[in-house]
Every structure is written in structure tokens, then in C-alpha cells.
């Protein structure tokens, strides 16, 4: 077993699952730095995202923080953008794309980081029987401590445009776009950050699974290295979801903001090297 690949995938999947960011955007450059060829690193990034998403699913479902309707609706828009982006890939320069992604990550970090306090508060009129998604809507109730927090996704038109753009950028750049989706869901749609992170962790798993199938069909997946990354990411994904459930919404938001700054710095460094 390659212990460096194992440790890096554990760490980045933990971070990705904690903040609903996917994690490939951190893992792929780290793998390249530690000697993995870039052509092999990209599929391993997707293995990590899909594994982390699967590992976190059980806890997110048990704690009822994931909103599947919101995830499916936003992912449909983002995936359509990603397919268009993937088809058009090569039209935009790698360096320009990386700089744009870094700027987006930094803007998302500032947007979440400057907000104080908790926006979505528990409603004392609600009880455990109210927990769940609301049929036919992008609303729901999730448990927080001893209370029950109602929420409803807002500003759908603006958010749809952002998700389509995130998908397009992700398709052009070959990323899952989780680091754009979580802040958009939380800060633009006003969905609680824990629901946003859990929902994005679900959706990036779908995107990564589709990409992984493509790489497998192209024969670009090194099975042994992928198994190592899968092992580390399954542990990391579970660990990240566990840490997230122990943090307050403000704590999760701060962690997401810090991680987005890290992503922005990593992308800037990548752009400088290109």
C-alpha cells in the first residue's frame, strides 16, 4: 500500500466531507506534488470524492441533514452546465480557468466568513414529527441540538444561474465544483450550512461517480492506487461527517470559509506554475 496516497486521501476526504467541498481540488495537486502522474491523479481525485460521499451518506441520512430534493434539483442544473463545459473544454486557457476558480473560492469564503451568528433558528412549535423534506418543495426541517430548524431555499433564479456557472466552470476545469455549490446553497439560497454541506456531499458523489465511469471506460484508472485512495477516503469521509455533526452551524461555516481560502491559495499557486 502507498501510505502517502492513503494519508493524503484520508485527510482531503475528511476535509471535503466536513465542509461539503468534495476534496478532489485539494487531493489532485497534492498527489501530483508527491509524484503521481497528472494523468493518473485526476481519476484518483474522483475516487476520493465518490468514496468520501458514500462514507458520509450513512451519518447524513441518520442525522437527517441531507435534502435530496434540493440536491437533485441543483445538481441537474450544475450537471447540465458541466456537460456543456466538458464538451467545450479546451476553449478556455487552463491558467485563466484556474484564476477564475480561485477568485470564486475566495469570494465564497468572504461571503460566508463575514456573516455573524445563526440565520436559521429552531422553531419551538416544531417537533420530531416535522423533521424531513417537504414534498414538492425545496424546504424542510432538520434537527439541531434539542430544537428543530425550518428552512426554505430562496432566490432560485440567482442560485440556478450560479449552479449552471459552477457546473460550466467545473466541466471546463475537470473538477466536481463542490467548493462553489456549498457556499451558493448556504449563502445565496439561505439554506442552513449543515444541510448545504450534507446535500453537496451527496451531489458531488453523483458527479464523481459519472466521471469515474468515464475514466474506467478509458482505462485510465490504476486499480491498486484507486483501492488505496478508496480506503483512505472511506475513513476520511466518515471522520469528516462525524466532526461536522459535533460542530455548531457557525463552526461549520467558519471551517468552510477557512477551507475555501486554502482552496483559493492552492489554485493560485497552480495558476502561477502553469
Amino acid at each position, binding site marked *: 500500500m502507498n501510505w502517502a496516497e492513503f494519508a493524503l486521501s484520508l485527510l482531503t476526504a475528511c476535509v471535503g466531507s466536513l465542509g461539503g467541498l468534495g476534496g478532489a481540488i485539494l487531493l489532485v495537486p497534492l498527489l501530483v506534488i508527491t509524484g503521481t502522474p497528472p494523468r493518473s491523479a485526476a481519476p484518483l481525485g474522483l475516487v476520493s470524492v465518490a468514496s468520501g460521499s458514500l462514507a458520509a451518506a450513512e451519518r447524513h*441520512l*441518520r442525522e437527517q441533514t441531507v435534502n435530496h430534493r434540493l440536491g*437533485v434539483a441543483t445538481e441537474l442544473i450544475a450537471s447540465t452546465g458541466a456537460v456543456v463545459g466538458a464538451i467545450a473544454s479546451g476553449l478556455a486557457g487552463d491558467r485563466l480557468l484556474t484564476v477564475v476558480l480561485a477568485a470564486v473560492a475566495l469570494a465564497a469564503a468572504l461571503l460566508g466568513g463575514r456573516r455573524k451568528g445563526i440565520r436559521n433558528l429552531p422553531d419551538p412549535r416544531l417537533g420530531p414529527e416535522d423533521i424531513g423534506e417537504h414534498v414538492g418543495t425545496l424546504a424542510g426541517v432538520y434537527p439541531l441540538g434539542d430544537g428543530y430548524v425550518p428552512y426554505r431555499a430562496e432566490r432560485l433564479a440567482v442560485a440556478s444561474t450560479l449552479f449552471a456557472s459552477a457546473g460550466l466552470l467545473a466541466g471546463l476545469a475537470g473538477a466536481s465544483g463542490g467548493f462553489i455549490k456549498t457556499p451558493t446553497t448556504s449563502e445565496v439560497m439561505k439554506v442552513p450550512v449543515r444541510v448545504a454541506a450534507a446535500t453537496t456531499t451527496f451531489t458531488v458523489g453523483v458527479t464523481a*461517480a*459519472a466521471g469515474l465511469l468515464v475514466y474506467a471506460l478509458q482505462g485510465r484508472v490504476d*486499480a491498486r492506487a484507486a483501492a488505496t485512495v*478508496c480506503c483512505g477516503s472511506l475513513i476520511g469521509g466518515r471522520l469528516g461527517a462525524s466532526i461536522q455533526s459535533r460542530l455548531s452551524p457557525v463552526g461549520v461555516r467558519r471551517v468552510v470559509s477557512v477551507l475555501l481560502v486554502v482552496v483559493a491559495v492552492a489554485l493560485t499557486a497552480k495558476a502561477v506554475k502553469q
Partner: protein
Amino acid sequence: VSVVDRTDGSLGTIGRLSHIASWAAFLAAFIGAISDSGVGRVCATVALTLIAVAPLARVALLVTRWRRIGDLVFCALGAGLLTVVGAGALIAAMRG
């Protein structure tokens, strides 16, 4: 007043299936990572298949559930997502 789609029942099933898939993938991946034999390669392939199929199966189960409870808008959105993801994968595979 919206009807609450409680996160038990079929969603409990998705949680249990995720739990089983996660542990099965971990065991298979572990054997695949430590063994360079034919068994190791088969186990690695099983692990990758599990992590690739699980999220898509989750969406397919959600589509089935939403159809059953009459949430046809989201049933259509879920089916649309699977179609877009499938088409995207097909286009990408064909382009090599």
C-alpha cells in the same frame, strides 16, 4: 401546508444500503490495496464498482420513491439528472 416526506421508510433503506456498500467497498479496497495478486485486482475493481454505482443507485431509488408518493416534479428532475449524467458520461467516453 407542505406534506413532510419523513426520512424513514425508503430513506432508511438507502441509509442501510449505504452502510453495507461503504463497508463492503472498504473491505474490498483494503484487500485490493495490500495485495498485488489477481484476487487483489478483482477486489479493487469490486470496490470501485461499488463507489461508482452507489450514488447513482441512490438517485434511482429516490426517483422510485418520489414516483410512489406522487411527487412527480422531483421524480422527473431525478430522472433528468440520471439522463444528463448518463449522457455526459457517454459523450465523454466517446470523445476519449
